[in-house]
């Protein structure tokens, strides 16, 4: 965008939100040219992304609406951004399109809490930690606890990026908890969904009524179809009884069967499954003397009633034994120490994982179907072993490990997350390039199994578009064209909004 055009647009935007909330200086712009480094290979090494032309901070849906109208007038993209924690460029402009970033983090209020309906209405810029804090005051929880330590991540980005979360096995993913949305459409119209589509309804939140479920197309859409300005999500009473349990299993198949049964019975709140054969040698050296060459499941369980809780733990033990499970004395220990797996305190969180495999510990942000998980992971391990020389040693692990494959079994329905952590040597461009190619190869291998998917797509749709049916792509394009004929909403997200060949 030319300087004069940028200045004109900045003036127009300032007329909407106020001077203080529009920035166009280089320093500010470049700090919005990057998101989470866990997707390192997508960002700093890529020449695909660039800084926004302007950054604007709206405070009301009406302001977002006016900004959308201005964007159509100026034919300039707008990209909504929350905590800036996406790993697939969802909230970073493409270099070739530029655009205006809508930093939504000032739209961060809790608007309404409906105790009887177990629902809370919030703005999308609210961050996970803040939401927990506010809900705790009401004695409730959001169930899903946020993306593993990224408590600074905003929920709006989680909705756009299909955020999986701590406690998903029990409560489902974030988007399974969304009831209603208020969305600013690309033409600036503000719509409400579900029960709120009836203008007489003010504070009753239900998703499946008044016609089709129009919430769905905005979930996981990375802002390609509109900007979410309010949403309602479910809340749950905080269970009084909870504990962390751990069992080891003779092999991965036994562990998976145990996990499935645990989920079917509704006993598990959150679970991390460790498959022995995927572990790096350094961890094997630690684990083997303690538990042998066995897989480990560490999980949280909870209940509202003491009697139910005791019975539940007994039932869990019985199921574990069916599959050769041996209890680890972790439960008593963690209970005594007051920690639990569902504790969001940096537990395997944002800082931890990336740093343990840092610098540039990159996560492939992929989910796999549990029964096929070994197949998915096996190929990734092969690729990493073949390319080990392209990877640097993990700094925190004394350079000992060059890659680390870790699986988190998330549920519901047997979904696992697979982390292929691959630290790269930033001082060697050749190795970085090779590591990037290897990373892409891993993701391609996941997709080729047919049993893995990228839960976030963002602007990294290249892995998927070639595997989607043409009819499916046409359908998405038709929605995009209808809603957003000027392609102002986050072009490139989901591979949409760009001219042919771009």
């Amino acid at each position: 965008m030319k300087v004069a055009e940028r200045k004109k647009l900045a003036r127009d935007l300032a007329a909407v939100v106020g001077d203080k909330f529009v920035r166009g200086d280089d320093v500010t712009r470049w700090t919005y040219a990057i998101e989470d480094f866990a997707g390192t290979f997508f960002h700093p090494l890529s020449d695909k992304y660039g800084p926004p032309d302007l950054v604007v901070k709206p405070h009301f849906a009406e302001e977002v609406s006016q900004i959308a109208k201005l964007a159509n007038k100026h034919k300039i993209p707008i990209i909504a951004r929350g905590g800036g924690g996406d790993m697939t460029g969802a909230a970073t402009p493409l270099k070739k399109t530029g655009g205006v970033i809508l930093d939504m983090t000032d739209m961060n209020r809790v608007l309404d809490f409906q105790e009887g309906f177990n629902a809370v209405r919030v703005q999308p810029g609210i961050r996970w930690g803040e939401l927990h804090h506010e809900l705790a005051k009401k004695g409730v929880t959001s169930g899903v606890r946020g993306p593993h330590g990224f408590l600074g991540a905003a929920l709006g980005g989680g909705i756009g990026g299909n955020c999986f979360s701590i406690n998903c096995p029990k409560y489902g993913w974030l988007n399974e908890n969304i009831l209603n949305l208020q969305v600013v459409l690309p033409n600036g119209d503000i719509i409400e969904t579900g029960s709120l589509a009836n203008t007489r309804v003010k504070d009753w939140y239900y998703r499946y009524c008044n016609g089709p479920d129009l919430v769905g197309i905005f979930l996981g859409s990375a802002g390609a179809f509109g900007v979410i300005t309010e949403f309602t999500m479910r809340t749950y009473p905080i269970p009084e009884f909870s504990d962390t349990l751990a069992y080891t299993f003779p092999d991965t198949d036994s562990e998976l069967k145990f996990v499935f049964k645990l989920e079917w019975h509704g006993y598990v709140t959150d679970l991390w499954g460790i498959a022995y054969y995927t572990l790096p040698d350094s961890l094997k050296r630690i684990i083997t003397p303690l538990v042998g060459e066995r897989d480990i499941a560490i999980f949280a369980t909870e209940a509202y009633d003491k009697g139910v809780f005791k019975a539940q733990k007994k039932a869990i033990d019985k199921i574990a034994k069916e599959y050769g499970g041996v209890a680890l004395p972790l439960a008593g220990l963690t209970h005594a120490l007051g920690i639990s797996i569902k504790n969001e305190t940096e537990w395997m969180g944002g800082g931890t994982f990336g740093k343990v495999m840092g610098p540039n510990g990159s996560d492939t942000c992929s989910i796999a179907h549990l029964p096929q998980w070994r197949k998915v992971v096996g190929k990734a391990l092969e690729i990493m072993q073949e390319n080990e020389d392209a990877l640097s040693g993990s700094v925190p692990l004394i350079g000992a490990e060059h890659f680390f494959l870790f699986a988190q079994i998330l549920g519901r329905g047997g979904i696992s997350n697979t982390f292929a952590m691959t630290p790269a040597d930033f001082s060697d461009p050749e190795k970085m390039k090779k590591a990037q190619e290897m990373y892409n190869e891993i993701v391609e291998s996941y997709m080729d199994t047919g049993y893995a998917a990228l839960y976030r797509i963002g602007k990294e749709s290249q892995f998927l578009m070639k595997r989607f049916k043409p009819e499916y792509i046409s359908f998405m394009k038709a929605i995009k064209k209808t809603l957003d004929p000027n392609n102002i909403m986050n072009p490139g997200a989901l591979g949409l909004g760009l001219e042919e060949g771009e």
Partner: protein
Amino acid sequence: MRLEECKQEAWICNHCSMCTQAVNDESGFYRICPVYEQLRFEDSSARGHNTIAFYLLNGTLEYSGEIADCVYKCTTCAACEEVCKPMGNMLAQIGGTPLKIAIPSIMGAFGASLDPVRSVEVVETMRADCVDLGLQPEALKKVAASVELNYNPYDEPHADRLKWTQGLDIPRTADTVLFVGCNAAYRNQEIALSSAKILRGAGVEYAVLPGEWCCGSPLLRAGNVDTAEVMIRHNVELLKEKKVRRLVTACAEGYMAISRDWPKFAGALPFEVLHISQLLARLISEGKLKLKHRIDSRVTYHDPCHLGRVMGVYDEPRAVLSAIPGVKLVETYPTKHAAWCCGAGGGLRDTNPELALAIGAAKVPLIKETGATVLASSCPFCKAHFIDVLREAKEPIEVKDITELVAESMGV
């Protein structure tokens, strides 16, 4: 470019957003970056600074007045680093603070590291580059010029440094030295006086040194590394020459600089370094400090960032305050490692006084919530700043250094 030294920091930052704005009830954090809380754009957060460093290092950005303006808007409070400690809070939950401190040290011995991203060091290094390029804000150029000329940042004659000691007859040599620091020597002399009287009252033989120069902390925070080095080398030589075995200071800034920064320039120090709160806690536990007079007040303690988060001194000031008869010590939330900065640090009070006051003002409701009538601190900069903040807010809360409260209770 000095920033080359921070290449690893720029790459290892995950950009996870915890340092920008996070709340974590379980580890006591309620929002992190005081500057981001005020300015609300990404460039005013540690993540933003690390991003700028990244783009400076890869040549996308070049140093400019805009960048200088950005990197000098930081209080160096290190809340960003505190929340960035991977597994740190988990370790603390398992084995308390000792484990949190011990594990990284043990790992360090093997060459492994679980350190946080040193975002403050990144900012200070960018500031040092700004100094080299003449981009430092004028207010801080004046500070540096004053230190070069007068060995203090206030344009005061060096000859007046110990003017406050007149009539006190404090020796000029002893095993223990009270390192007064520029602020207490020239601006908040009640802290220097209280410290001196307490030490005498407790029977501690100590000296003050007319040859004491600026500790270098304001220079290091502002990027004037070379001038700081001159100050540090002078002070270390002086203390060695005087065969000092123990250095005590009532300044949180000074304590951090002397303990942490001086050895980087002058090697291991041949004397013990104590913040006065540590010495007082020790004297109280040994029964050498008689706190006779009641101070019937509800007191809340403000953790100076550089004494608390950076140096880990949380318990001693509280132990001292709790030992004063009549004092009811109440905690502000968030507290200790997660305490909010007063706004004065990192030269912000000089370069952006309105922003510094706004940051301090943001903490006033938290202080009021405690019902305290006295806000105690152990840093002359925090004290001076809070006096201004509370005056602006028209809040009748008294601000005292812990040395003043102790001296009052001792009746000295």
